[in-house]
C-alpha cells in the first residue's frame, strides 16, 4: 500500500512537471520567434535606419539596397482587396445560416465550410492558376481595355478572398451565436420583422465582433504565402492598379530563400521581412482578440 501510494505520487509529480515544462515552452514560443527573427535581422538594422528599410522603394540586393516598400504595399493591396470581397459574402452567409436557414441547409453548409477551411493553400493556388488567372485575363481586363497575362493583384485577391471566407465565416457564426436569444425574441415580440431585428439588434450588438472578425481575416490573409505567390505575378515594382502584378512580403521570403546565402546581408533582409510580417500580423491579431474579449465581457 505504502509503495503504491509513493509510486502514484511520483507519477503525479512526473506528469505534472512535464505538463509545466510544455506549458512554459508554449508560452515562450512567441517571444522566441520574435527575438530569433530580430537577432537575425540585426545585421541589417545596424547599417540602415528602420524607416529607410521600410519605406524605401529600391530593392537591389546586389548593391546592398533593401527597400521593402513595394512588397509591403503589394501585401496591403492584395489583403485589403481580398477582405473587401470576402466581408459582404461572409456577413450575408453567416446571417443566413444563423438566423434563417433550415436544418438541411445547416447540415449541408457545415461540412462544406469545414472542407473549404481544410483545403491546403497550394490547392487554392492551382485552382487560381486554372480558373482565376484566365478569368481575369479574358473577362475582367478587357472591360478596362487592357491585355494582361492575368497574373495580377486582382487574381491574388480573388483567390485569397475564397481562402479566408471559411475562416471569417466560422468566427462570425460564433459571434452571432453569442448574442442572447432573449434579445432577438424581445425584438420579435415587439412586432419587428426578422430583418429589422437583424439590422437593429443583432448587427448593432455584434458590431465590435464583426470588426474583430474582419481584423482576424485581414491578418490571416496577410500571411498567406503559396497560393498568392502562384497567381500574383511577383514583379518588384510599386503597384498602381489592381490589374498589375504585385509581389507581397510572404512571396518575397519564399521565392528568395535559395539565393540569399550568396549575397551579403540578403538573409538579414529576408529575416527582416519575416519580422515585419510577424509584427503586423500580431498587431492585427492582438487588436481583434482584445475586441472579442471585451465583447464577451459586455454580454
Amino acid at each position: 500500500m505504502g509503495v503504491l501510494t509513493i509510486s502514484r505520487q511520483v507519477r503525479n509529480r512526473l506528469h505534472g512537471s512535464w505538463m509545466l515544462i510544455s506549458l512554459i515552452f508554449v508560452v515562450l514560443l512567441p517571444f522566441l520567434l520574435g527575438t530569433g527573427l530580430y537577432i537575425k535581422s540585426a545585421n541589417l538594422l545596424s547599417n540602415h535606419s528602420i524607416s529607410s528599410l521600410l519605406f524605401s522603394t529600391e530593392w537591389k540586393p546586389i548593391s546592398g539596397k533593401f527597400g521593402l516598400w513595394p512588397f509591403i504595399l503589394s501585401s496591403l493591396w492584395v489583403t485589403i482587396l481580398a477582405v473587401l470581397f470576402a466581408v459582404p459574402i461572409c456577413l450575408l452567409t453567416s446571417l443566413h445560416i444563423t438566423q434563417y436557414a433550415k436544418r438541411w441547409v445547416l447540415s449541408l453548409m457545415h461540412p462544406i465550410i469545414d472542407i473549404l477551411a481544410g483545403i491546403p493553400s497550394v490547392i487554392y493556388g492551382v485552382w487560381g492558376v486554372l480558373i482565376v488567372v484566365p478569368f481575369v485575363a479574358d473577362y475582367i481586363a478587357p472591360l478596362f481595355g487592357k491585355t494582361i497575362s492575368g497574373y495580377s493583384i486582382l487574381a491574388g485577391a480573388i483567390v485569397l478572398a475564397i481562402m479566408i471566407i471559411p475562416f471569417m465565416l466560422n468566427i462570425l457564426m460564433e459571434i452571432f451565436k453569442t448574442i442572447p436569444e432573449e434579445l432577438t425574441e424581445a425584438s420579435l415580440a415587439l412586432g419587428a420583422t426578422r430583418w429589422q431585428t437583424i439590422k437593429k439588434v443583432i448587427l448593432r450588438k455584434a458590431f465590435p465582433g464583426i470588426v474583430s472578425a474582419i481584423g482576424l481575416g485581414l491578418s490571416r490573409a496577410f500571411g498567406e504565402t503559396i497560393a498568392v505567390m502562384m497567381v500574383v505575378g511577383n514583379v518588384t515594382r510599386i503597384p498602381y492598379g489592381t490589374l498589375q502584378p504585385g509581389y507581397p512580403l510572404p512571396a518575397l521570403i519564399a521565392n528568395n530563400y535559395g539565393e540569399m546565402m550568396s549575397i551579403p546581408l540578403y538573409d538579414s533582409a529576408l529575416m527582416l521581412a519575416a519580422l515585419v510580417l510577424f509584427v503586423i500580423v500580431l498587431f492585427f491579431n492582438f487588436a481583434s482578440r482584445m475586441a472579442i474579449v471585451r465583447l464577451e465581457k459586455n454580454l
Partner: protein
Amino acid sequence: MRKTSRIEERFFRVLMFFSTAFIAISLLLIVFSIVYKGLPSLSWEMLTQEPKGGFYFGKEGGILNAILGSFYLAIGATLLAMLIAIPVALFINVHLRKYKKSTNFIRFLLDLMWGVPSIVYGAFAFGVMIYLGVRTSLLAGIITVTLFIIPIMIRSFDEVLKTIPNGLLESTFSLGATLSETSYRVVLRQCIPGFITSILLSFGRAIGDAAAVMFTAGFTDSIPTSLNQPAATLPLSIFFQLSSPIPEVKARAYTSALVLTVIILLISIFARYFSRKYEKNKIRF
C-alpha cells in the same frame, strides 16, 4: 413604409441565399476543376514510383517520393505536437481550472500564435538552422511543422476539454485520484472522440502546408530513409511541377493536386466517422 421594408427584407434574403450558394458552388468548382484537370494523367505509375531521370522534362516516374515524404513529415509532426499539446491542454483545464486569469492569458497567447503565418515559422527555423550549421532535413521539417501546429492543436483540444463538467473532476478527486490520474485516466478518455477529430485536422494542416517546409525539409527525388535526409512534400512538388513550361509536367502537377485533395477529403471524412464512432463510449450526464 411597410411595403418598402418588406421589399428590403426580400432583397436581402435573396442576397443571403446567393452568397450561401456562392460558397457551396466555389467548393464544387475547386474540386471539379482539380478532378477534371488531374484525372487524365492519373496512373498507377504516378502513385507508386519515384521520379526517374528526366521526370521534370515529361519522362516517366511518379510522385511517390512526395507522397511518402509528406506522410512521414505530417505523422512525425503530429506525434511530436501531441506530446506537448495534450499535457498543456490538460494542464490548462484540470490543474489551472480555478485560475481563470492565467488560463485566459494562456488562451489569448495561443490564439495569437494561431494567427502567425507558417512562413514566419519557416523563416525562423531557417535562421536557427543557419546558426547551427545544419542542412535541410526531414527532422528540421518535422520540428518546424510541429511548432506551427502546436497552437492549433492545443486550442482545439482545449475547446473539447472545456465541455468537461466540474462534477466529473470533483467526483474523481473525491475518490482519491491524483491530478495526473484525473487528467489522463478520466478526462482524456472522456474526450477521445473530440481529440481524434482535432488530431486529424492538425494532421491535415501539417500535410497541406508548404511555406514552413520549403526552407526546412528541402526537396529531393528519393524517398528519405533517415531523419537527417531532405524530404520532398506534396505541396512543394505541386508547386515546382506547375512552374514548369512543359505541358506533360504541368498535367502531372494537376494530378498531384488531385492526390493531395483526395488525401485531405479522406482525412475530413475519417474525422467525422471517428468522432461519431467513439461518441458512444462517453459517460453521459
